[in-house]
């Protein structure tokens, strides 16, 4: 190479020219690459085989870099390169590189396949009855390779409880997601919520609807040798559902310039307490924001 350059450039003025030629040679060398003209697959779908077109001749090395793995294998140029279904399971962007001395590359996308599973999140697990927007659910559609299906699909949400006609609504996924929000029912008990793609592809969740806060407290009582025994009528919410055992009812007694109170849990729908007072007293009850009637009990004889 140096002799070639020296032959061409003899005088000292051509030093610049020699340098220029050397640079040009280097740049030409690095600029030159075998153009393999890679042709990517079009419309590739996850889990389906595809092929990559490549020109040229001789042997080369294929690298396939995908979202969930990479492949490296020897290939013959000039043939269509098969990409197996397993190599294309993950949806997303792939880069195919073919190296034969120098390397050429091309990118392409693999779309998700048809939806076959649903991920369904429902909240809460227990909801008080008769409350607006108390229950919500989010459903996501995935294909068999756990790729999120971005193409809109139609989902049906169905809410059914005992003794009540089921409520059904259809929603289309947007960006892979569909969601709903609903009021809770008036009766306590399990509420079954189903998200369905088809009759065969559905997921079910259960929300336990429980009694809301106590409503319309009523008390009755009488003086006994052991004290004033106070008892509530069956404690229910405003929809008539019995409140759960353990709900606290506070009894307050006022008399002779003194006030005392006692907390009693509901057991089998009723709360009971015994208040010690000799003189006449006025007794009331409260639970949450619900107030009961006032009971006047005369003094001890």
């Amino acid at each position, binding site marked *: 190479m140096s002799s070639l350059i020296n032959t061409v450039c003899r005088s000292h003025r051509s*030093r*610049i020219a020699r*340098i220029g030629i050397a*640079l040009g040679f*280097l740049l030409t060398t690095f600029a030159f690459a075998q153009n393999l003209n890679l042709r990517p697959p079009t419309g590739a779908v996850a889990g389906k085989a595809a092929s990559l077109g490549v020109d040229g001749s001789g042997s080369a*090395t294929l*690298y396939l*870099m*995908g*979202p*969930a*793995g*990479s*492949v*490296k294998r020897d290939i013959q140029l000039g043939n269509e390169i098969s990409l197996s279904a397993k190599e294309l399971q*993950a*949806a*997303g*962007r792939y*880069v195919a*590189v073919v*190296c034969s001395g120098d*390397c050429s*590359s091309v*990118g392409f*996308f693999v*779309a*998700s396949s048809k939806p076959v599973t649903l991920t369904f*999140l429902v*909240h*809460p697990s227990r909801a008080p009855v008769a409350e607006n*927007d108390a229950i*919500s659910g*989010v459903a*996501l559609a*995935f294909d068999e390779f*756990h*790729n*999120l299906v*971005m193409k809109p699909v139609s989902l049906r949400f169905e809410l059914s409880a005992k003794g009540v006609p089921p409520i059904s609504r259809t929603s289309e996924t*947007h*960006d*892979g*997601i569909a*969601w709903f*929000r609903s009021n809770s029912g008036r009766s306590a008990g399990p509420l079954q919520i189903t998200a369905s793609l088809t009759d065969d592809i559905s997921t079910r969740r259960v929300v336990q609807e429980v009694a809301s806060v106590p409503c319309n407290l009523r008390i009755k009582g009488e003086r006994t040798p052991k004290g004033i025994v106070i008892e509530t009528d069956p404690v229910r919410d405003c929809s008539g559902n019995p409140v759960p055992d353990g709900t606290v009812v506070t009894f307050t007694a006022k008399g002779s310039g003194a006030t005392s109170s006692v907390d009693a849990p509901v057991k089998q729908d009723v709360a009971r307490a015994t208040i010690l007072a000799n003189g006449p007293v006025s007794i009331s009850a409260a639970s949450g924001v619900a107030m009961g009637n006032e009971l006047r009990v005369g003094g001890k004889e």
Partner: protein
Amino acid sequence: MKSSTSKFWLRSLSRAVILFVVAFFFSPRASAADSSPQVTLNVAKVAPREVETLTQRSIVRDYRFAWANLDLALESNSAGPLNGLFVGPANASLNEAVRSQKQNGITSRYLNQSHKLDAVFYAPEGDVIELHDTAEYDLEILDGSKTIHSEHAIVHYVVLMTPGADRWVVRQLQSVAQF
């Protein structure tokens, strides 16, 4: 006089050219390799739930950390950096990507990352958020020490994040041709 001046300039030019060639081919490539990913989050169009300010900060922080470790995992072919940051399908995919790279003697690097996140869905109970990430980075793929692919890429990702014990984790990281 004229001849000595010319010689001086010729010598200077030739030295400059040689220095340029040497610097171009032998300088370290990753001058910005130490910079962590740049992440911004836009919540203007999110529904049905608004993203609280503290949640926004957490998501940006945790997403940046996830991508920094994704690069580290694929550069070092070690799945360790992915632990606790990726769960579910994202974790499975990336673990397999690391395993197969290692098997084939390949590494990859995601340099100079920039992520513009748009929150498009935030569940009513706050248990899942969907983000659209317009990611920009310099991707390098190496077979051993030889670079077989290098590009400046702009890639769109659909991201699902869910709240973990002490951070938001990436559950789905799926690139798409367009949003």
